């Protein structure tokens, strides 16, 4: 089963277990590469967070196809909706279709290969038609472009979805959808970072689960000295930013205004995370391999040398269990470590539903009601693969989460509490900042450089990328 909460941009793609998907990507990429030269025509304009570029002449941007003012009125009970979803969310769409026979759905299920959704929307913008009325997106990172001037797809939901309803989403979970004070998407699931610990190994070695990053660092040093070859984390992929740096309050991608982003990797919050990691990377207790790589599986996963990982709530069932064949009862979860000056945690992934700004007001209301239904309905969310962002749906989900008997302890409490402390300072931009970590910092780590020595290069790359995408960068 596809893990819909995983980000699907190129940076976050999962190498070890997605060969088939990658082959599919390749086909799409080859086809689209040809199209890149010639196809297509314009784009959108007007914006909330987007840059200055691209676009506009026929499709988005014009009053005819731009965000239509959503007039007051009741949500229609019947109508026709074009829906885009992935195989994982398709059951939810089918449930909606069953319970809403009056709504005719034209459903397009596809794999959301890297960039596929964005490419299609871009081409529809050139064409001036073809947009789905409601679209699932398995990458919260895409929220950055969905509402932007360049793409202008997502309609603001304020006024369509009641404020009281929006308040039923977990604390800060809609921050990824919020630009200029408006909510442009409904988050389906969230994935706060927590501590994953190998319970039998921790007991065998006599270690305590850390509660602070200082304890985490001390544990890493102890593991390197007493049990070399075991790891307590990894920074070999883009998730390192989400786990260690957002988890320290590092302003690597914080929107501070329309089209203005704060990037300062020399901030003390970033430096404290890097300094903590330096000795652990050096002594090998934190790996520089991607957790989803074949190398990592061979070195640590397959031979039970993973003592601990800091990662999202889906790590256990969607990474450790399928990739490393972790037996039930191996992995326990605990609250993420904290800093003296920072108590929040980062998150990795989560999916969103967006409503087309090109649809009529009535269609927008119907589409928004569908998104709300799918995100909140216990029929689907109770057994959904990932932690629901809607608090009511989460309550139902948490009752069933331990039914799999996978976890060493009941994770409900940790999952619930961690969902409430996700740091809102990590904004979704027009590009993936995870990607920048992967292609800037990881090659340096591979060459033996320390995380702290790469902070400057990372910051420069982030700023360059932000500038290229039309952002004004501030410190």
């Amino acid at each position: 089963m596809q893990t819909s909460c995983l980000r699907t941009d190129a940076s976050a793609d999962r190498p070890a277990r997605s060969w088939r998907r990658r082959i599919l990507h390749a086909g799409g990429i080859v086809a689209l590469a040809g199209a890149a030269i010639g196809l297509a025509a314009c784009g959108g304009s007007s914006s909330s967070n987007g840059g200055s570029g691209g676009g506009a002449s026929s499709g988005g941007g014009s009053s005819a196809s731009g965000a239509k003012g959503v007039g007051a009125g009741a949500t229609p009970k019947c109508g026709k909706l074009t829906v885009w979803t992935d195989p994982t969310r398709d059951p939810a769409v089918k449930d909606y279709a069953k319970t809403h026979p009056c709504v005719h759905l034209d459903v397009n299920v596809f794999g959301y290969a890297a960039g596929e959704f964005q490419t299609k929307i871009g081409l529809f913008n050139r064409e001036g038609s073809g947009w789905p009325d409601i679209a699932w997106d398995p990458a919260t990172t895409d929220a950055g472009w969905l509402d932007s001037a360049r793409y202008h797809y997502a309609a603001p939901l304020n006024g369509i979805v009641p404020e009281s309803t929006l308040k039923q989403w977990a604390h800060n979970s809609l921050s990824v959808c919020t630009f200029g004070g408006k909510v442009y998407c409904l988050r389906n699931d969230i994935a706060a970072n927590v501590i994953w610990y190998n319970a039998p190994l921790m007991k065998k070695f006599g270690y305590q689960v850390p509660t602070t990053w200082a304890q985490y660092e001390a544990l890493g040093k102890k593991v390197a000295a007493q049990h070399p070859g075991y790891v307590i984390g990894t920074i070999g992929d883009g998730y390192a930013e989400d786990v260690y740096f957002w988890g320290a309050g590092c302003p690597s991608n914080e929107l501070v205004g329309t089209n203005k982003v704060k990037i300062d990797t020399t901030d003390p919050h970033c430096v404290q995370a890097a300094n903590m990691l330096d000795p652990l990377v050096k002594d090998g207790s934190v790996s520089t391999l991607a957790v989803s790589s074949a190398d990592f599986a061979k070195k640590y996963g397959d031979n039970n040398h993973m003592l601990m990982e800091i990662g999202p709530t889906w790590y256990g069932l969607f990474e450790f269990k399928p990739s490393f064949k972790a037996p039930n009862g191996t992995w326990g979860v605990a609250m993420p470590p904290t800093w003296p000056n920072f108590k929040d945690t980062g998150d990795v992934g989560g999916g969103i539903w967006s409503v087309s700004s090109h649809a009529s007001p009535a269609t927008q209301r119907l589409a928004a009601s569908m998104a709300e239904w799918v995100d909140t309905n216990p029929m689907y969310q109770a057994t959904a693969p990932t932690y629901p962002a809607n608090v009511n749906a989460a309550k139902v989900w948490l009752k069933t989460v331990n039914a799999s008997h996978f976890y060493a302890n009941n994770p409900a409490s940790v999952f619930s509490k961690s969902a409430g402390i996700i740091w809102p300072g990590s904004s979704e931009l027009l590009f993936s900042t995870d990607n920048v970590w992967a292609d800037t910092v990881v090659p340096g780590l591979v060459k033996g450089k320390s995380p702290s020595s790469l902070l400057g290069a990372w910051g420069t790359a982030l700023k360059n990328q932000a500038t290229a995408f039309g952002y004004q960068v501030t410190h």
Partner: protein
Amino acid sequence: MTVATQVPIDVEVPARAARRRPRRSFKGYAFVSGYLAVLIALGILPTAYALVLAFEKSQGGGFAGFSNFIATAKDYRFLPAFANVGVYLVIWLVSMTVLVLILALLVHNASRRQSAVFRFIYYLPGALVGAASVIVWLFIFDPAVSPFAFVLRWLGLHSFDQTIQGSHLPIIFTLMAFWTGAGGWILVMYGALNNISVDLIEAARLDGCNPLQLAIRVKLPLIAKWVAYMVILSIAAGSQIFVEPTLISSAAGGVISPSWSPNQLAYNYAFQQADFNGASAIALDLLVFALLCAAIIVRRFKLFEAR
């Protein structure tokens, strides 16, 4: 004698030739029409469209002059992308040309049976092209799963990330391109070598040429134009490299820049930045680069001059 034969032709043939010409032309056009239709639909029209877009303002339309070209050239990713591809092209073209010629000459010198076997073997990898071949190479380059892991480890490469680090990429892409493309070119060169008159080779041998001298002084100059064609087409293909870096980066969690090559950068402009005008400008840069290289080679090897 020449004059004697030309005069009657000049005088008598036009009427017959005029009758035949339309039929010949029609057959020729019919023969190439399928190719022509595809060329126009998927080659000329998109190129013309890119040409229009490249000189159009990205916002609001209207003539943009060279602003799209200037803006993209100032992009911090532009020069590194062209530098990456430049290094790759140099390594690939030199190694491919040398190895293809050596292998073609060896095949040409072999006995008929050996030659057939080797031509088949050389061509086999060409059956696995594009994304499929990249997937095969992904396995080969990953020490965790590669059947050649011992070679990688001997080279000091213990992880996939180490194998595909930036400085190795031109060589990695050269290996991939050679694997899939060289076989076809070896056959083309073999065909070209077969076109050389047996009498000429025999004469050279009688004059005392050893096999090496025969290859360098007789055979190679006679197939120089074929080599030039190979280089021109290889420059065009190589400068557009896209699938290889994209797939390898995807497989490695994005450790290769998504704008490693100019074609990737153009793709990012179009589909990440929604700037089709900038993308078209970069595409035209690539076209101009390939055309310039082709023009130099055509001129140098006098490709369009009759023998």
